[in-house]
């Protein structure tokens, strides 16, 4: 199918790594409040945002994810004390690398969503998938040389 068709029928494929204690809980809250949330996101539950390592993110990106969302407790709220601070630094490194290589760093986002913020969760996810939709598919999906 042509690029044009692709663009027309494009629903982004976003992978979201959510921390079990805050953001996953917020996602549940959003669900039980029946908020409408973009189907673009696939939720993957991890115990802590600090569990998400560079290899996992790179593989996800190079496997063609249109967007990657890492979401956990607000700084200071980490169930394990300081995990999200480390996550933030690791994220900053990868983000810098992607920026440096012009790899559309917008496709990688870190957000803090606490357990009581069901509405914020919906906003963050919907805004992100809107952004990704505007950005179009991850070009890697059309490359034969990768």
């Amino acid at each position, binding site marked *: 199918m042509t690029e044009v068709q692709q663009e027309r029928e494009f629903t982004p494929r976003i992978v979201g790594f959510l921390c079990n204690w805050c953001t996953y809980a917020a996602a549940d809250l959003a669900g039980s409040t029946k908020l409408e949330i973009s189907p673009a996101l696939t939720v993957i539950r991890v115990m802590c945002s600090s569990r998400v390592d*560079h*290899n996992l993110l*790179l*593989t996800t990106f*190079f496997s063609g994810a249109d967007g990657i969302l890492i979401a956990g407790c607000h*700084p*200071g709220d980490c169930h394990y004390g*300081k995990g999200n*601070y*480390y996550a*933030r*630094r*690791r*994220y*900053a*490194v*990868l*983000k*810098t*690398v992607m*920026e*440096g*290589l*012009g*790899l559309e*760093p917008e496709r990688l*986002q*870190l*957000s*803090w*969503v606490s357990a009581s913020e069901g509405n*914020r969760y919906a*906003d*963050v996810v919907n*805004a992100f998938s809107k952004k990704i939709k505007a950005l179009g598919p991850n*070009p*890697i*999906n*059309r*490359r*034969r*040389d*990768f």
Partner: protein
Amino acid sequence: MSDPEKQGAGLEAADGIKSAVRDFLRKALENSAADAVLVPVRTPAEDSYAWILTNDPNLLEKASPAAPTMPVQGAKALKSLTRKGEGTARVIAVMRPCEIRAAMELFKLNQVHLDNITLISYDCVGAVPLQDYVGDPAGSEERFDSMLEARKTDAAAVKPVCRICVDFSLVDSDVHIGLMGLAGESALLVPNSEKGQALLDTMGIACEADVSGWMQAVSELKAEREGNRSEALSATGAGLQGLDGLSATFADCIGCHNCQSVCPICYCRQCYFDSEAARQDPAALLDTAIARGGMAFPGNKVMFHTGRMAHMSLSCVSCGQCTDACPVSIPVADIFSYMARLTQATFEYVAGRNDGEPLPLRQFKEDEVEKVHEIVKGAEEEEAAHE
């Protein structure tokens, strides 16, 4: 660097710098200020150099404290010597500043131990690319020696990263040998740590020489290099942009991973990207090929390089080994220097600056959102917008 207290000792170099350093090392062994020295020695075939650990003055005769080329990064040699902890032997190691900076990173990563090691650095005029040297050893020797004696880098003769190196002089070594801006036949021994001072003391070398001239020359050259460096690195960056840039840059990559295996910083027992975990599932490969209308082999080429950038660029010291090792002449070192500057700036970190600065990913600041990276701030603002 701009330490007014700093003093040095003159080092007689009438017969050339190499022999001056050799004499110094011999003296150190004689005064049993050290049990052995770790230095590069020209291979018997005279077409390369190898690191030698020796206490034999005769062998020392063949040593070349400042080798024209760098087949093995000194930090790697030091690692194989001390990775299991302190040896009992007190060893003096003479290395290029970039090798010492790599050693500092490996020290923080618990891959080298320095208690019994005395590090001696020297003003580096650069290293001859390995291929060039192997191609014409005699000529390279000549060119290098003249550079060294003139204390001046000949851009055409050295690695691209050396041309734009700003850490060519004093680093966190114990004793530094200053050359820049000094009249021929003379050099400076500059103690740079208690250990270094102790070494000179036991050897009965008093430090009264003024070092300001040398410092002046060094900082001038640094300033000049800084400009070129930024220019060169941004040029490299410009060529990398996007999948097209990356594809073009790494088109010839044969996936040999030499760049990783010679890298002093890549300390992993097995690179993650060589491990089973990183291998793609053959079925998945077919799926990808069908989905994308085709795919290149070996796969994950660019992911490998990107992954290394994420893993080690915070500690990269721009020594240029990776370029030397690349069989298809990809300017790996330029690329990683470019990335290293970006990632290290993110945490106001300078790889190998000293042995005390904690590794950025082992710590954090609670309120660093802005400082860490504006993009993190970006994310925060985005959320703020949602509130």
